[in-house]
């Protein structure tokens, strides 16, 4: 084939492709999906959470589409990888606010990345809907910041009640991830636990990359508590539990809902047996929306068990759909719709309604679980 021939051929096929695109554009203009922007980590150290978000989003979108979409239009999202890095999340924010197709933004994952982008969303009048943003100042960024992340002011007193009042632990050691989330949670927990009459023997903050907790646990042992409280994610929570057992600590362990994941059991093995977890959702919850979520998730992802981050993302997408249904595609109307949505079915909250003053949702579900025979089970009230 001569050069010219090849060039003509390429040109020809390009023209065909372009004509095809143009045609499909014209034909489906009305059916263009309503687009949400997602800013979150797909690479970098938090990449796993972005992956989990996608799983939750996609499941919710399948169901929304099957139910006829938003007034007949499909809902879709454009996921931009920020690596949870503030420099990138601000650029993404500019990209989203200047893209007229984006009606609402979801994310980012971490506080620095989310809150660095907040001023841009606020000024441009595009809702930044953070669903993992428990930093107490996140929604103070402006009236375009809304969050379904459970306020730790809500969750930690429930965990404290479980540990102190129900399990009867009087002298506690608190191990917490030394981030804004872990630190805020610790303070709420400690206050509540003291209120219930418990003594805090020691608190230890550790950084996210930490893998070795043996020396920390010797400190804990020397403080002689009768219970260990873990304000951890599942991976570090499992590590601490394993090493606690290895250094010979036999105390009752009670963990925040963030460890609730099948991965916690897999990574912790026998060491997490009898660990108590206060959680916002669990698979045996008979509520139909929970059962539908779990069945749908397992079906879509080859039997994979969903965990808390999947549930947050699923809830957030459903909330976004509910809001867009009321607010339409106008950004400001969508902001106003957040104040109007009522009792949206939710895995985490049962039904979710925003508190207009805080722009957060109140009243997370709380189930008291314990790991028995390698499975999370409802706590039967018996001491361990």
């Amino acid at each position, binding site marked *: 084939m001569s050069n010219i021939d090849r060039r003509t051929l390429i040109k020809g096929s390009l023209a065909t492709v372009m004509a095809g695109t143009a045609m499909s554009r014209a034909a489906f203009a009305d059916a263009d999906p309503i687009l949400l922007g997602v800013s979150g980590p797909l*690479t970098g150290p938090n*990449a*796993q959470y972005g992956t989990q978000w996608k799983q939750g989003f996609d499941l919710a979108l399948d169901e929304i589409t099957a139910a006829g979409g938003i007034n007949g239009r499909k809902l879709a999202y454009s996921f931009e990888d920020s690596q949870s890095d503030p420099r990138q999340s601000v650029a993404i924010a500019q990209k989203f606010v200047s893209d007229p197709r984006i009606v609402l933004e979801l994310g980012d994952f971490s506080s*620095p990345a989310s809150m660095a982008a907040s001023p841009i969303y606020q000024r441009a009048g595009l809702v930044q809907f953070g669903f993992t943003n428990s930093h107490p*100042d996140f929604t103070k960024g402006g009236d375009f910041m809304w969050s379904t992340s459970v306020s730790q002011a809500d969750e930690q007193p429930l965990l404290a009640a479980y540990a102190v009042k129900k399990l009867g632990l009087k002298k506690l050691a608190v191990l917490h991830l030394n981030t804004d989330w872990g630190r805020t949670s610790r303070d709420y927990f400690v206050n509540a636990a003291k209120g219930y009459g418990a003594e805090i023997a020691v608190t230890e903050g550790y950084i996210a990359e930490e*893998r070795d907790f043996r020396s920390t646990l010797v400190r804990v042992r*020397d403080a002689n508590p009768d219970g260990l409280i873990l304000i951890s994610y599942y991976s570090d929570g499992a590590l601490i539990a394993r090493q606690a057992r290895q250094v010979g600590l036999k105390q009752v362990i009670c963990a925040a809902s963030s460890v609730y994941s099948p991965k916690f059991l897999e990574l912790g093995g026998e060491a997490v047996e009898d660990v108590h977890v206060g959680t916002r959702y669990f698979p045996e919850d008979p509520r139909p929306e929970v059962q539908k979520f779990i069945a749908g998730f397992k079906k879509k992802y080859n039997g994979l068990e969903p965990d808390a981050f999947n549930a947050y993302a699923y809830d957030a997408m459903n909330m976004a759909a509910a809001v867009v249904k009321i607010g339409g595609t106008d950004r400001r109307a969508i902001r106003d719709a957040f104040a109007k949505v009522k009792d949206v079915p939710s895995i985490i909250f049962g039904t979710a309604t925003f508190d207009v003053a805080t722009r957060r949702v109140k009243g997370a579900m709380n189930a008291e679980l314990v790991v028995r025979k390698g499975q999370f089970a409802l706590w039967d009230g018996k001491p361990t």
Partner: protein
Amino acid sequence: MSSWLDYTINGLIVGNVYALVAVGLALIFGVSRLINFAQGSIYLVGAYIGWVAVVQLHTPLPLTIIVVAVVAALVGLIIERFGLRPLQNSVRIAPLLATIGISFVLDQLVMLTFSPNPRALPSQLPDVRFQVGGGTIGPLDLLIAGVGITSAILLFVFLRYSKLGWAVRATAQDRDAAMQMGVDVNRVNQAVFGIAAALGGVSGMLVGMYYNQIDTAMSLQATLKGVVAEVVGGAGNVPGAVVGSLLLGLVESYGVAVFGTSYRNLFAFLLLVVVLVLRPNGLFASARQAPPEPLTGTFIAPSRPVRIPRWALLVAVAAFAVLPFFPVSFYVLQTLINAWLLGMLALSLTLVAGTIGQVSLGHAALLAIGAYTSALLSLTLSVPVGLAIIAGGLMSAALGTALISPSFRLRGHYVSIATLAIGEIVSLVILNWESVTRGPIGISGIPPLSLFGYDLISASSVYWFSFAVMVVLALLQARLLSSHLGRSFRAIRDDDIAARAYGLSLNRYKSLAFIFGGFAAGVSGGIAAHLYSYINHETFNTQQSILALTVVILGGLGNVVGAVVGSVALVGLPELFRIAAEYRILIYGIVLLLLVRFRPQGLLGTI
């Protein structure tokens, strides 16, 4: 008292874990004088190969170890052959950067293959535990200790008594002489990389089993701790690496015992800095070792810088200055704002790394100091933002120079390692000094940029402001470089012995360079703080330091225009690749590798 026994045992156990990485690093450093930043990635690869073997193929432990060692060794051989051998005759910094690029590529390939979710890697040893002190020790603890110590002994024997070992040592001492004596230097390198990679892979697998957990983010931390342990022990010294690792483990464990968990890494990096200051070649550098070859201009590629005509620069500046008048999207403006902020950091680094030859891997610390100073001054003392940013620059200049000054007597790679440690120390101090920095909660509600009472909040005003600041800093720096002072800087870089003989005070000139550089970086951090309105100790991290170094290498060391061009390129490229989502770090790594391979002197060359 019994607790101290436990702290000691725990320190030794985790020290053993570090030793597994440090031994491989030491071996490679011994032969190639190269700090292999990809060692942590090989450790990661080993962990995942181990997972495949154990969980999917159900191999018994001895076979698992062999499989992991063989596959990891192959990876090491490939790295040596295709990543590093082509760089043999290039500048010293090139292979170092190449290993960073290789680590990006490997980490990303593992993540794409296995997903970033952590996985359980079950230990294949029986779970019996022996009571020691107040705690217990299991078979895996002993196996890790055994592998660490045995490999150190075997390596020692190999280096001392085998013919290939002699060749390795000869190459380490004097590469050219070894070649003249008929040593096949390439084969030596291959052997070393193969052995080091096999060790690295096996260590990743063992550590994964130890924690019953592997994830794709484990490589950077492993590299950091391994490098610290190795340098503490004396770079290139295999038994030293083991001792350095155990010492590191002990210091961390005792640090936790006395001060609490959140200070742990602080002690690791302080140990490194103290050792480097007291014994610049590590604790066990032998007295007979040949002094490090004179590093005169070692890092700098000989090249003729590309001179850009003045009119072209003026046109470019004018074009960027009027850009916001054209219908460009805010996204493009924001991306360029990021580039200007990175440009200020790069100006700072290209001055200290390029012009005076002190390669810094902890430059993000200067950003952090400037950002916190500016944020706190404007927030708590209501200092006007413009003044607060200048104060941030001054604080970075003063504090940064003071922190880095102990490393002024170090040479070559040790400077980069010391600055890496100082970067980590600054971040950990910010995390722990709660009364001032608000600790992990970070600082929120930082007032927006403003000048003479006018808030600069629109994308174009922020754009003009940051662009103007960068241009002014660049002009000042260009003036500096063409002055007598600039020539003195370059004299110190090119031959510090000659410069000293000529009567130049090295410390004073290095301080001057860091003061100017610290100011530029601090201003960049200050502007960023007001732009983001929220910062915490993670906002300015090691990745940012590495990015800055990549920028100045890309642009050409010491080259002012190059720093700016490099910033625009390296902020722009990932944004262009944004469409490639999960693949973009991979692409970034490959671009870095190609750059180092084909244009080590940078796009515009070194001044």
